[in-house]
């Protein structure tokens, strides 16, 4: 998609073209037909299960039987369970790290890779690798690096005088390790989003700013940040969704432990369903989580549209 024009380009072009054509029944029918496969698929494999899961959340059954109707008991149980609130707290921490940590790293790298320099394109591909490499593989390499007292990083920490650092056995260190792992596998997404946004900025703007005597920090503050704000917000929303719904990253690295310290809501939901066999409860947790997430996204989208930035 390197031919993608700048956002501003497309924003101005699209509505004008749309207005030029008169609505016509045949065209509408064709478009409806073209949308149909996706609509059917999403209704059967996404929407129907969501509705079913909603019903399930109001029942107390097991994996294959719906059980009896219990009203909002599952939601009440979740909201009064300290582990739910702990997991909610960890989900927030984990997602904030995922969103802002990876944004900072990804944006910095996007800026680093912006000008031409020898080897630029190779670095661009290499730096995307952590995102392409399967999480199963990444988590294994982190396990090898950190899991036991004789692994590389604990030994290194020992030698450097930090003492016995238990990366995955100590609750606080486990939380930090999981968050760092998340940043490492997520920054390439941010790097791609921000690189695309940076390419949309007219080079003349920097030129003009430089002539006016703006230093690089001022250029960043008054040109780059505002001009990429829209992409930034969208990247945040998407990354928040990816982080909150991220099961494999946490589950593969720590399984939610030690002593539940890295249990996020999605891990808790998974455990409720497949280890405690309480699907109603697990699904209720997921719904609470998704509800919060969608609310947040809608607020942010409103913000983007109202501000109509860049």
């Amino acid at each position, binding site marked *: *998609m390197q031919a*993608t024009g700048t956002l501003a380009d497309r924003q101005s072009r699209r509505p004008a073209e749309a207005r030029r054509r008169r609505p016509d029944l045949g065209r509408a029918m064709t478009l409806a037909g073209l949308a149909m496969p*996706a609509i059917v698929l999403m209704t059967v494999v996404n929407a129907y299960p969501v509705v079913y899961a909603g019903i399930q959340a109001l029942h107390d059954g097991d994996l294959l039987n719906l059980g009896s109707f219990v009203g909002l008991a599952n939601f009440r149980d979740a909201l009064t369970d300290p582990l739910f609130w702990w997991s909610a707290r960890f989900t927030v921490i984990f997602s904030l790290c995922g969103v802002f940590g990876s944004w900072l790293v990804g944006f910095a790298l996007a800026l680093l890779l912006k000008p031409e320099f020898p080897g630029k394109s190779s670095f661009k591909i290499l730096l995307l690798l*952590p995102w392409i490499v399967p*999480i199963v593989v990444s988590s294994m390499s982190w396990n*090898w690096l950190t899991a036991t007292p004789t692994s590389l990083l604990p030994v290194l920490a020992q030698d450097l005088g930090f003492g016995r650092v238990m990366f995955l056995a100590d609750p606080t260190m486990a939380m930090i390790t999981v968050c760092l792992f998340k940043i490492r596998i997520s920054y390439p997404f941010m790097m791609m989003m921000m690189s695309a946004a940076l390419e949309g900025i007219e080079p003349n703007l920097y030129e003009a700013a430089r002539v006016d005597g703006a230093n690089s920090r001022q250029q960043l503050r008054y040109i*780059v940040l505002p001009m990429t704000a829209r*992409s930034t917000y969208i990247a945040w929303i998407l990354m928040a969704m990816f982080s909150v719904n991220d099961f494999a990253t946490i589950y593969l690295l720590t399984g939610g432990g030690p002593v539940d310290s890295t249990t996020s809501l999605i891990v808790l939901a*998974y455990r409720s369903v497949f280890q405690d066999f309480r699907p109603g409860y697990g699904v209720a947790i997921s719904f609470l989580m998704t509800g919060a997430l969608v609310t947040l996204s809608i607020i942010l*989208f409103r913000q983007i549209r109202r501000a109509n930035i860049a």
Partner: protein
Amino acid sequence: MTTPIATAPARNSLDPRRAGFGRTLAAAIVTLVLLGPIIVVFWLALRPRLYTDITGPTLETFGYIFANTDILLWLKNSAMVSALATIVSVIVAAPAGYVLSRGRGGAVSVYSLFIFVVQSFPVVVFVIPLFIMFAAVGLVDSLGGVAIIYVASSIAVACWMMSAYFDTIPVTLEEAAWIDGCSVFGGFVRIVLRNSLPGVLSTAIYAFLLAWNDYLVALVFLRSDDRFTLPIGLQTFFQQNQTDWGPVMACAVVMLAPPVVIFAFLNRFFSIGGIGGSLAGR
């Protein structure tokens, strides 16, 4: 770009002009740190498995895993599932993305919102109802069943990616075709789709990565050893061989090779930046 006005040669990170070797060095250091864990995987995989007199890197461990594990079977399963999911995703997402790009009005807004809301739900929500549905039609423990779920979980972003690419193709091209008597559908296939190879590839890569890298769906739906895909096979193998890291890492290399090779050749077609406009544009 080329400025004759010689102000201070302020070569900072925002400077759109050419930077020098200093930047190469900085990028190399950052890359080395960030890729450390991947380098570890290769290093362990290329070490001799047994204590022999081999000192340099060796492919011996790879010989061991191909002879002693089911990795070829897992590889075949993963390849089949991912190929199927990729092809179906593109076939479904291309026309849907066209509608998002060209359609206007209430129905399209509702459609767009539907995609957004559906994609917000975590897979855990879908899993049990799908398990029950699939059990009824014999799709549990089936590679086809898993592929269907992969298509469903990639479809939202795939639609946005296609739509973002179609936005870059001028509507005037289609209008010319319509005037020449081409139908809307014909315009979509002959004009838009034919000029959308980068968009199609981009979407295909996304769908492939999602299917190839998935862990949760395979964990829940694939039950028997001969249906395992690489992540699940690798995981069971890893648990049985806690201390024997060489073979585990050799399997890991086999698993990360296809996406990396595909990306190395096709990365110039891949851009996720465009989905932003498509998402917030309406």
